[in-house]
């Protein structure tokens, strides 16, 4: 079971209301994608692709309110829970299944290496 989950570190490393980034590299060390791991004010954790569906803004740098992040570039609101753009905007970012266990954060391995839009099985 645990083998399916990738330990990315202690939950303590993310302050409530902020996000940290997790680059994913390929075999040659080139970055293929970046995941943003959020902790809401309430203490819930979410992982989504660090790329705004509008013009690729780094969502990790937005203001977090409720379970929504406002993109730092043009203020689109993205639901951390579903990855969907809210309000009148249309678009969606991939979400990555995350769980917290004994104070550590785990991402679903297959969703991490599955690149971009769909999480393929490892």
């Amino acid at each position, binding site marked *: 079971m645990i083998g399916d989950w*990738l*330990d*990315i*570190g202690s939950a*303590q*490393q*993310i*302050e*409530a*209301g*902020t996000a*940290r*980034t*997790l*680059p*994913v*590299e*390929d*075999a040659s*060390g080139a970055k293929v994608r970046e*995941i943003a*791991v959020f902790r809401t*004010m*309430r*203490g*819930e954790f979410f992982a989504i692709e660090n790329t705004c569906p509008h*013009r*690729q*803004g*780094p969502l990790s*740098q*937005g*203001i*977090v*309110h*409720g*379970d929504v992040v*406002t993109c*730092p*570039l043009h*203020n689109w*609101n993205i639901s951390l*829970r*579903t990855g969907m753009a809210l309000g009148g905007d249309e678009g969606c970012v991939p979400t990555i299944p995350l769980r917290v266990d004994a*104070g550590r954060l785990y991402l679903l*391995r297959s969703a*991490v*290496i599955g690149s971009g839009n769909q999480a393929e099985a*490892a």
Partner: protein
Amino acid sequence: MNFANGGLPGGKREKLVVIGNGMAGCRAVEEILARDPGRFEVTIFGAEPRVNYNRIMLSPVLAGEKTFDEIVINTSEWYADNGITLVSGDRVDHIDRANQTVVAASGRTEPYDKLLIATGSEPFIIPVPGKDLEGVVTFRDLDDVDRMLAAADKGGNAVVIGGGLLGLEAAHGLSLRGMKVTVIHLMPTLMERQLDEAAGYLLKTELESRGQTILTGANTKEVLGKQGKVTGVLLEDGTEIPADIVVMAVGIRPSTGLAKAAGLDVERGILVDDHMVTSDPAILSVGECVQHRGLCYGLVAPLWEMCRALADHVTDRPTGYAGSVTSTKLKVSGIDLFSAGDFSGAPGPDGEPCEDIVMRDASRGIYKRVIVQGNKVVGAVLYGDTADGSWYFDLLKKGEDVSDIREALIFGQAFASGGALADPNAAVAALSDDAEICGCNGVSKGQVVSCINDGSHSLDAVRSTCKASASCGSCTGLVESLLSLTLGGEVESGPKTLCKCTSFTHDDVRALILEKELKLIPQVMQELHWSTPDGCASCRPALNYYLLCAWPDEYEDDQKSRFVNERMHANIQKDGTYSVVPRMWGGLTNPRELRAIADVVEKYDAPMVKVTGGQRLDIFGIKKEDLPAVWADLNAAGMVSGHAYGKSLRTVKTCVGSEWCRFGTQDSTGLGVQIERMTWGSWMPHKFKIAVSGCPRNCAEATIKDFGVVCVDSGYELHIAGNGGIKVRATDLLCKVETEQEALDVCAAFIQLYREEAHYLERTAPWVERVGLQYVKDRLAEDGAIATYAAAFRYSQQFMQDDPWARRAEGERSDLHQHIATVRPMEMETVS
């Protein structure tokens, strides 16, 4: 119930052995006896050396509100009367499924036909050094309470680790017993599983006012001790808290060891079906030790349901258990708190969104939030007034359609029940004329209505004539209802509110922050009845600025409420990299600075360097991870942050002036440098640009700046509210002064007036157009105004002029710059 009456004459009874003489185990036996008293011969093993008692009442026992005798549920007579053998103080160590026997620590072996495991849970002990010291206790059974009482007898300091239900009840009890209590909680919000941030804040404030110290976001590193006895607790951040007793209340784990060793299916808890049967048909299990449909429970209400289903099943009338929705109350006297269901706001299985209905009443310390999804209540958090808790919980459990009472739902059952009253306007219409509408100002419904009839046709007009809803604002909804009832459709819409989270305007919010001395964002949200739990991307930065401006010496900047550029102290670019602009005072530079900039450009491979319109050098394409190192290099050459990224003083642009220029009338460069030294680092409602030109030829373009100085032979012309942006606006002349000192003072005073009165994100040009140039002139012409505002600005600057780059370069908030880890798929491992 007397066993002899219900016995089955002659028939050999089945043997039921129960492991665990606690709340669930005994309740299950009671339920069985009630259905079929003669069916089983019952033996109960209990590790605790006593009869079954109401565990949840241990908190009142600790607090001195109850004695142990008062919380006993099953007396020894009960066991005797029902023919139950109680083996207390003897822990079962082994289950032999093949031979259907259990073996206890004493060696006692008992055969069974049916076995019931009701072992409850064990407190979780965080694995830190010192956890085994004498004086470190948990809060689970009567022995723990006795240990706490013994410690409390000696007085001193208690540290409770864990700010959940148990921890806070322990803290309350110890503090009533005279100990000085500190609660250490890992999460930012107390009871975060039951409360949202707003309610958690209220709870924290209340507990602090009772003398407890509450440390949230605090991580325990070590329990300190001397000669085997606890002496204190050390936090991750280096804080040391003295302690004579440490209570660990960080959570519970289902007690599954025995079941696991016996080979039963166990995940987090012992797996059971809807009839509480484990993977072995002869073995049942109930209580906190089980996992049913993926869930483990830590409250008693679900256990009662489980026990009912279990008894129905073993007496051959199976009904089944379908899982429970739980609700929580905190048993701390004087604190009313209720939480039920899901308040996470997660959309339903078919993507149906959640809607929050929030009501706050600051004067009475009340916060209510009901979460509705697809016309059904899915959660509720109540603080201060929990009278309607059970009603919401009932609506929730029954999944009732609330669309008819939606509008009045938050006012509670009294308002919402009955179709006619479901419309809040109707509810207000039904109020008597002398019903009080505004509690703060004592205004009745009759008074509000006559004030509306006398011509106050908007909320604002009502507020200023009869004062209703002019103070805390919690009756705004009622006044609005009265307006629409009295006027029909003619209500004039009020001024624009700060954002959709509040009914207050920017000016209201700024005034109330000062009047009520509000000093924290959650406090503003509570006191001013924010309709969202933690605001939005519009109000959070605005509140952060308003608080910073109001309390420069006290307010601790909230980085989470800052736009990315101000948090990262650099300008984000469209590709997610940053541009870095070091300060060059008045646009002056020197070889050392230029060399340092050139070195940074080469070292970090910056793709572009550009001279800005504000006479600075802008280095592009720096990655967030490299920012601290870049700043360290620039700091080393004596340069500080240029704040090119902030709603703050940006640049003071100068011309060469009388030093070099043949037309120059004054030392414009020198004055520009002085102004920049005075104003740098100040946060403003919006970005703020200054320029100083040495003569009316105006080479520094001072007449399109927020503040511009044009030097003339006889002194300095001071201009305000220019803008070179989307809409070009030339400045207005504010005044003319004779000396540099006067120019500096007027500049400081004007900035302070703007800082104190403009709306967040309003530049000087629209602000001056909104309030009028004359207004600004009048304000600054008041007796002593220049000196007072200038002094206020300079005072605030004492706290602002601290290079943010230097602190980051030294490692402050490195989390903002570093990745949490990196994933290398080759190894599929993370590297920190």
